[in-house]
């Protein structure tokens, strides 16, 4: 089963894509786990999602902490702190 991963703003520009369908890797059960998995791709991914970098995440369009569980079918988004209005 798959998850949908979205990237916005500076993260989107760095990783070069705004959306990606992904087979949820075995052992990945949280937002932080997914972030670590993506970071392991290296290069721009490692940089954009670097540990310690201030990122926000949302699961199914609700802002959640990195410890939030993820499961098949979820829409998971990574983005910088918002700067609206």
């Amino acid at each position, binding site marked *: 089963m798959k998850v949908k991963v*979205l990237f*916005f*703003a*500076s993260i*989107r520009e760095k990783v070069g894509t705004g959306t990606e369908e992904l087979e949820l890797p075995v052992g990945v059960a949280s937002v932080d786990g997914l972030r670590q998995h993506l970071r392991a791709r290296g290069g721009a991914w490692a940089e954009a999602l670097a540990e310690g970098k*201030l990122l926000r995440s*949302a699961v199914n*369009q*609700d*802002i959640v902490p990195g410890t939030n569980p993820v499961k098949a079918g979820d829409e998971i*988004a990574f*983005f*910088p*702190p*918002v*700067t*609206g*209005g």
Partner: protein
Amino acid sequence: MKISVQQEDFDLGAEVKAIARGNPKVGAVASFIGLVRDINDGTTVGAMTLEHYPGMTEKALETILAEARTRWEILDCTIIHRFGELKPTDQIVLVVVASGHRGDAFAACEFLMDYLKTKAPFWKKEQTPEGGRWVESRDSDDQAAERWK
């Protein structure tokens, strides 16, 4: 109650007439417009692009409005936030709150604006003489939102 995330401009006068005109319970209409300035943090800004998270943005605005309605008497409310390319003096965001009394109208309008600036998923990229730069989150905005807790 109207929430719109749109590329097109809006008309304050028309929006206020639409929500307040003709309801004799409305004694107070507070409204706010945010506009693009030509300078931000000391840097000249030529134009900017507002990116948002379609779907989540509308959901966030509905949640914020529902929260505001538990706190203050809101007879009607309009929230419009634009996205896409904007240049200095363009309108970005509109909040209009109609209430029986001015205290509620002002508080709800400012509350909604503070949340729009700090919680709604919008990101601003400014074009400066040195090129594009993503605006960093501001401490002052976070503090403005904190005081409602």
